Structure formats: structure tokens, C-alpha cells
């Protein structure tokens, strides 16, 4: 789960990482007051989770409280890349001598935390990795040991700083790692870390991604676990399904993440357009299946529903009952293609056939049928 900039900055502050003074507001009037209180030039920053808000007009420099008011008014309630702006941050504009980069990520390929540091921050790190990889230092940390002072010294040295700022960069590195460790982060990033003319370091932006699997350890965030999801994604997540929205018209419902992706892909390879990823997991009972099917029945863009189940611990009769139940309860009728295979396959087929739903045995054939019904690209 992504944190908002202000949440990440609050955490940074608590862990001793210097951030420019800021306030978070949800009305233009509050924005004006905050700008007055902070004084001088301020930056108005839309609090959204999507990337690239700067280019989309979500970050504005305001010379006066009035300007802050009007920028806040523009942003609040508007949408940035499809995400509604509910809050803006008013924060002191920092004099920046140079922009640095500092982050801690999990390197999947080695299964360990990695410190990334660059003297050239502010830009997209992926961009920098492509164009000037020699400008990124990567330090692997043993997960059983954690960060050591010498790691922080190495990272800080790479940032090309004066003696005076070097120590601050070491501390920032250690503190960022403490954040990463304490909050079980997938990513803790400062980009840019601003070097100020007086040799200070300020986290001008802040990004934290929490591990959804560890969310239960942080009740202050776990209640808001659907924050970066669309309406249907959120509904599905509340029911404990994995659901992701795409732009096609063929709804996909399977058991198992790999099979669901393969089913989407098969539809695509055969010329169709998948509408979603919906994985009901292993061993789902009829009531759960019913809720999942209902979700797709109610989804406006979905014209065809393709259900592909390979029963192991999942029983085909339970799936069949779920499908039939959803159709009956919603009263919605959409074209449905069902492929059922495995445990209690016969029983499942019978239940469906009684309700005039015909089962296709092979996955390719079923995918082909779904494409036929949904139309080719």
C-alpha cells in the first residue's frame, strides 16, 4: 500500500529525517491560513497516490497566501490522472542547491534490502538507471544484520557532499533504513533529497510503500487498505478476492493467480479483450463464488463472463451453485462461458446444464468461445 506524501513525511519526521515545514488542508481557506502561518513562499502539493502529479499540475509554487488559496481551490476536488484530490499539502519552499536521491528497496533477485544513493536526484530513478547507471550506488544489506554505519558512510560519500553535510547524509541514511525496517516497507524513498545552500538536507518529497502482507502490524494504516483501488477493486478486496480492472469487455473469473493471468492472456492471444483479473483463490464455496460472479454481472463494461476453474481443493459443484445463485439473485443476464475441470466436475456440469449453462471442457476452446461472444479487437 502506498502512503500519501504527508503520511510519509510525518514518519520521516518522527525518525529524525528533516522535512520542510508543512500543513495538510482540505479547503482553500485552510490553505491560505497555512501559507500565512508557514510564511514566505510555499508549495501547494496535491495529495494523491498516482505518479507524475507534477506534470499534471498537482504541484504549484505560491508567492503569497492568496496564490496558495487559489491553487488549493484549483486542485481540491479535481482529478489528477483519475484520482480525486481530497487534501493538499502547503509546505515551505526550499532553496535547493542540488537534488540528491536516497532510497531503501527490497531487491527481489537477492532477497535483501538495498540502499540506493545518487548525487543526481529529482529525476525518475528508473530513468537514471537506464541513462547513467554509474550515478547510482547500490549497497546490499544482509537482512539478518541490518544497516551498519559503514553502509551509511559509503552511501553518504557517494552523494558528493562537503564534510559538514556528509554526517547529515549518514544519519539520513540510517534513519531511512530505520523507517524501512520499522514499517516493513517495500520502498522508502527520498526523491529529491535537497541540499540547501547552508549545507542542510531536506526531504522535499517522500514515498513509502508498505507491504500489504505486513499491514496488520500497523493499525494506523491497515483500516485504509483499499485507498489506491477503484470502486470495484475495493469491493473485491473487501471480499478477499484479488481483482484488477482492465479496459476490455470479457470478464475473467478463475481460481489461482497464475491461471487467471493465463486465462486473460489466452483471451488476448485469441483476439479478445479481457475486462479484468479476478482470482477467487483456492477452495472457494458457493456463496463466495456468487459474490464474485455478481461483481462481474454488475460491472458495466463487462459484456461476456468467462469462468475458468480447475478444481483441486475448489469443488466444481460449489462453483456451479455460485454461478447459478448470482444469476438468479441479480436477475442480470450476460453471456457466460464456463470451463470446469477437476473435483466434482460432473456434479458441477449437471447443476449448470439444469440452468441452461453449457460447460466447455478445454481451456482454449472456452477462451475462443468467449472471444467469439465478446468480439475481436
Amino acid at each position, binding site marked *: 500500500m502506498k502512503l500519501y506524501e504527508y503520511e510519509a513525511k510525518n514518519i520521516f519526521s518522527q525518525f529524525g529525517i528533516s522535512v520542510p515545514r508543512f500543513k495538510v488542508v482540505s479547503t482553500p481557506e485552510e490553505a491560505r491560513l497555512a501559507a500565512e502561518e508557514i510564511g514566505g513562499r510555499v508549495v501547494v502539493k496535491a495529495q494523491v497516490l498516482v505518479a507524475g502529479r507534477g506534470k499534471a499540475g498537482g504541484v504549484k509554487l505560491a508567492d503569497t497566501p492568496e496564490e496558495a488559496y487559489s491553487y488549493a481551490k484549483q486542485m481540491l476536488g479535481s482529478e489528477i490522472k483519475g484520482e480525486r484530490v481530497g487534501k493538499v499539502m502547503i509546505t515551505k519552499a526550499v532553496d535547493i542547491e542540488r537534488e540528491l536521491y536516497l532510497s531503501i528497496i527490497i531487491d527481489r533477485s537477492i532477497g*535483501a534490502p538495498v540502499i540506493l544513493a545518487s548525487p543526481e536526484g529529482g529525476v525518475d530513478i528508473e530513468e537514471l538507471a537506464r541513462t547513467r547507471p554509474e550515478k547510482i550506488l547500490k549497497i546490499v544489506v544482509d537482512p539478518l544484520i541490518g544497516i551498519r554505519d559503514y553502509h551509511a558512510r559509503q552511501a553518504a560519500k557517494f552523494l558528493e557532499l562537503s564534510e559538514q553535510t556528509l554526517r547529515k547524509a549518514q544519519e539520513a541514511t540510517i534513519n531511512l533504513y530505520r523507517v524501512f525496517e520499522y514499517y516493513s516497507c517495500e520502498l522508502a524513498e527520498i526523491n529529491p533529497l535537497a541540499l540547501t545552500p547552508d549545507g542542510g538536507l531536506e526531504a522535499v518529497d517522500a514515498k513509502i510503500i508498505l507491504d500489504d502482507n505486513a499491514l496488520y502490524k500497523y493499525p494506523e494504516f491497515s483500516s485504509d487498505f483499499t485507498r489506491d483501488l477503484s470502486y470495484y477493486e475495493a469491493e473485491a478486496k473487501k471480499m478477499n478476492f484479488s481483482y484488477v480492472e482492465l479496459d476490455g469487455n470479457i470478464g475473467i473469473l478463475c481460481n*489461482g493467480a497464475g491461471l487467471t*493471468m493465463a486465462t486473460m*492472456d489466452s483471451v488476448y492471444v485469441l483476439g479478445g479483450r479481457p475486462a479484468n483479473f479476478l482470482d477467487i483463490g483456492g477452495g472457494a464455496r458457493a456463496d463466495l463464488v456468487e459474490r464474485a460472479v455478481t461483481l462481474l454481472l454488475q460491472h458495466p463494461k463487462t459484456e461476456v463472463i468467462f469462468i475458468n476453474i480447475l478444481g483441486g481443493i475448489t469443488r466444481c459443484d460449489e462453483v456451479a451453485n455460485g454461478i447459478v445463485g448470482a444469476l438468479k439473485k441479480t436477475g442480470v443476464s450476460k453471456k457466460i462461458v464456463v470451463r470446469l475441470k477437476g473435483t466434482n466436475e460432473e456434479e458441477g456440469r449437471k447443476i449448470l446444464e439444469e440452468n441452461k449453462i453449457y460447460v466447455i471442457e478445454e481451456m482454449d476452446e472456452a477462451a475462443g468461445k468467449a472471444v467469439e461472444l465478446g468480439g475481436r479487437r
Partner: protein
Amino acid sequence: MTVLVNSETRVVVQGITGREGSFHTRAMLSYGTKILAGVTPGKGGATVEGVPVYDNVMEAVRKHPELNTSIIFVPSRFASDAVYEAIDAGLDLIVVITEGIPVHETMKFVRYAKINGVTIIGPNCPGVISPGESKVGIMPGHVFSKGRVGIVSRSGTLTYEIAYAMTKAGIGQSTCIGIGGDPVPGTSFIDALEMFREDDGTDAVVLIGEIGGDMEERAARYIVEQGYEKPVVAYVAGRTAPPGKRMGHAGAIISMGVGDAASKIKVLREVGVEVAELPSQIPSLLMKVLKK
């Protein structure tokens, strides 16, 4: 021959008294897996499906010194602890079925297992099966058949789908390893490829990948750099997945420009791995490479 599990495998089930644990204990027993003991703290003295239950792994090992493998069904909040316990008890192989373990915990116990010379499969995985010999996992046994092709996969049901297609086509499996869908698995594609390389009973390998991370790319590099002798065919799921979205598995996410299916497929093909467009094509690709 097989890798990881065979007729010598002796299993302790951690979390045996839970719903999942007891269900799959029955399924594994009926497949013929030799389960000697179960563990659930506080339930020592009970039996599940005729298997004696102990309070901790150390006790189980003391009573059944032949134990060499653990399968873990413990809920995610307690699963790490169960893994450490199994490592310290001296088992050789630990299969972690549990889904939802925080990755910070996994990083640590995977490293701990490595320094203790213990193999971990998973977490968030279907387990390992050597058809006809031993099943240490949750896969439906009947879709597999004994043979000479190894499977290594990040997925569960998709693997069953492909194994089933192979079985129908008359291509049996030596061992099928489900390494799981988490971002930091205990055993990687490369680890599995190395095991199959050493195995006399494996003639070819099916690699079932998906989006997220760069494990497929690393496997491709390994295959070309090491001059891997056995043919490898692959399927990669998720070519229609959008970036930044977790596709069910914690590890199935395209992030920071890394992990999309197209580039994985490209890199695999570049090193000569045949990559199927549809899961159903795996058997014919196998026949092609095995004929050579």
C-alpha cells in the same frame, strides 16, 4: 530419479490440526506420502488421520529421527516462527504453503535457511510432487503422472493445468516444484534448474513464469552462461497485466519498469528457450525439443 522429494521423504506437518493442515494431511497420506508426525503447539498427544501430534518440531524429530521434511500450514502471523523451528530442528527441506507472510520476515528466514544449508520451497506455494513417489503439497495428485520432465513454476492451478495437459499427451513428470508467488522465494528458478540438471531422471524442464521481478531473465542468463544441457520450454503468464498492479500473488507486479511478461518472453527466446503462447501448447513444444 527425482529431485527434492521421493520415496525416502519423511514428513512432519506443521499446523496439522488446522483446517488446511488436516485436510491436506489426509490428501497426502492417500497419495502415499509418508507422514510420520504433526506439530501444533499445545495439541501434543492428539492424532490427526492417525498421525501423532507433538507440541514442537524438536520433540517430533526426537521421536521420529527419520524425519527430513516439513510442510507448513501455519497461519501467516506464526509461519515465520514455524520456519525457524523447522530449520533449527535440522530438517533438510521445508515447504511453506502459507500465503501472506510479510516479505521482511521471509527475507530473514530465507537467509537463515541458506546459512544453515536448508532448502525452502515457498512461501505461498503449492509444494512439491514427484509423481508416484511423494507429494508434499496441496496439488491434486491425479493430474500428474510419472515421467521424465521436470516442472518448476511460480503458480499453482496454472501448473496443474499444464501438468494435466502433459499427462493427457503422455508426457509424465519427474518432479514438479511450485516455488510460489511471493517476491522472495526460498528456491528460485535457477536453484530448480540446477537440481534438474543433476537429476538423471529428468530429460527436459518446463518453466512456468509470470510477471514481477526478474527471475525468468536470470534463469535465461543462467541457461546461456552455464550452457544448460537439457531443453527448457516455458510459459509466462501476465502479458495482459497492467503495470503497478498486484495480480493475485504478492510477487506478481510490474514495478519500477521491471517485470513485464513481454520482456521475459523475449529474453527467454533469445537464449533458445521455446516459449508457449498458450498453456496448451507446452506438450507439443516438449515433444519437439525431446525429439531432437
